[in-house]
């Protein structure tokens, strides 16, 4: 078990280093922050001074080493725009993002899983078809289209809800619903196919053949097995709690991490972008680690292989 955990932690660390390195290189090759931040018509001396101040005139490998050295001493750099610490800038946006993504996650779980199970149990029935039509619609419509559609109906036409901003809890409803619907659709399809796969297994027939009532077959025998593939997709959803709202935050002008990321990329605000990507990679990797541990708890076959 310890070896398993150690191996996973090492792999997690490598993943994070790779993400951060990739971001470092791509950001620096795809545009000059000095030009963008100082403006196109800034005098050359000012741009040169800016470059010197941020160490941008040094060779890339030296910048890279310096950057990693700083990370390990806990310094994630400062924003090139206002000089504040990138980590502080990002941290103050996190609560706003979580205020959207956590309720959205609850909607995904609360609607997606029951809908998928119900559809699987009534395969080819009217209920199944209805759930699947909605699910296909839910995950083929991109979130910015759905978001705009909801704004059009509930903000513009009906005037029930605000179309953007963060003044009250009512401002959160449309973005939460926008994210929740898409995720619930994905989860419903996943849960349905996992359940169908499990319901066709011989051990389900065995349980029925020994007199287990159908309800108990579903709860006691089918669901624990169907949970194994479903946990994977839930892990992804948990992993994207921080970064999963980029599009929706932009559509609804919600001042969260996602919007900060969009602005920081546009400005080539290197430290801020890298700080967010580091955070995203870390949450995704942490969620994956939890999923791996959950696999072991759910499936004794994997537990043995891992231990």
């Amino acid at each position, binding site marked *: 078990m310890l070896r398993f955990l150690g191996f996973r932690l090492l792999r997690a660390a490598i993943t994070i280093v790779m993400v951060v390195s990739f971001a470092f290189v791509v950001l620096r090759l795809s545009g000059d922050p000095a030009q963008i931040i100082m403006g196109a018509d800034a005098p050359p001396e000012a741009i040169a001074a800016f470059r010197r101040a941020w160490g941008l005139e040094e060779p890339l490998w030296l910048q890279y080493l310096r950057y990693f050295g700083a990370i390990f001493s806990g310094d994630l750099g400062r924003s090139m725009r206002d000089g504040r610490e990138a980590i502080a800038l990002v941290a103050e946006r996190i609560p706003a993002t979580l205020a959207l993504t956590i309720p959205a996650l609850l909607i995904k779980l609360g609607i997606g899983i029951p809908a998928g199970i119900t559809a699987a149990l009534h395969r080819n029935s009217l209920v199944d078809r209805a759930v699947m039509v909605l699910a296909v619609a839910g995950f083929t419509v991109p979130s910015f289209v759905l978001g705009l559609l909801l704004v059009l109906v509930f903000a513009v036409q009906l005037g029930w809800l605000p179309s953007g901003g963060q003044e009250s809890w009512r401002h959160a409803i449309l973005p939460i619903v926008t994210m929740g619907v898409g995720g619930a659709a994905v989860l419903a399809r996943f849960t349905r196919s996992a359940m169908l796969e499990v319901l066709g297994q011989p051990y389900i027939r065995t349980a029925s*053949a*020994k007199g287990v009532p159908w309800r108990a077959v579903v709860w*006691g025998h089918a669901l624990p097995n169907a949970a194994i593939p479903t946990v994977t997709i839930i892990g992804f959803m948990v992993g994207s709690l921080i970064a999963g709202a980029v599009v929706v935050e932009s559509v609804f002008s919600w001042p969260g991490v996602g919007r900060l990321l969009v602005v920081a990329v546009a400005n080539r605000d290197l430290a801020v972008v890298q700080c967010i990507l580091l955070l995203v990679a870390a949450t995704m990797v942490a969620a994956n680690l939890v999923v791996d541990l959950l696999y072991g708890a759910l*499936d*004794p076959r994997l537990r043995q292989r891992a231990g």
Partner: protein
Amino acid sequence: MSEPLVAIRGLAVDFGGAPALRGIDLAIAPGEALGLVGESGCGKSVTWLAALGLLPGRARVSGSVRLAGEEILGAAPAVLDRVRGGRVAMIFQDPASSLNPVHRIGRQVAEALGLHRGLRGVAARAEARRLLDQVGIPDAGRRLDAYPHELSGGQNQRVMIAMALAGQPELLVADEPTTALDVTIQAQILELLGALRRETGMALVLISHDLGVVAETCERVAVMYAGRIVEEARVARLFAAPTHPYTQGLLGALPPLDGPRRPLSAIPGSVPEPNGMPPGCAFAPRCPHAAAACALGVPEAVAVEPDHAAACLRAVRELLPA
């Protein structure tokens, strides 16, 4: 036969236009061992899955299945849940995938004990351990906490048998219980089934494609072909005097253990598709003795002797005085 334990009359199953069973009549006496033989797809397993209501919803089932006189075909779920495992237990071909991979085997056996004998907790665990002992699993106390993937195929089949015994059934239906196992393990499992039948007095239906397996374990055999029973007799009688040409073909394909060497015969052709059944006798296209009359109607089973019936026009003709 005295009052049969299970009486199946005219059992027919249809999977969306493709008939899988075309009228099965079968009776099992209390404590009897019956072999159900035929090639794959002939309806051996479907007969019992249909009788216990275990087929998927799209299967259309008709006919009658009486358990000690009580109709169970189409019975309410609550009735069927008491019958399944409690009065008629069933074990399957692939023991490894027939046990739930995420539950310990002790829990799976105890579940049946709770359902049919009201045993819970420590009492259920003690009885589960006794059952594992009874089916010959070494170190039963520790094995209770094992998962199916930690046991061999033969041991998993023993667990399946223990689970089947948990409800103290009057009939155990064993659906190809040894097909997925090594030959040596096969013999052990068959021996175990025979011994348990003697100890408990339960009836046994052994579904197999292997006449040899059935001959060793059973008293009576029913031979199935394309969704019908074509011949039924006591084991010794069937081997000595097979009447239906299909049975004759099956026996001709077995190498004799003693006597002179002879070339093994094969049955020409293949089983008809469910939705392309020939008119009349389904075996006629492959039958060496087929006559024009065979295509006219499906032959009814007739008694060629007491306790020996065959569904073949020739059997009828042989009975007529010359």
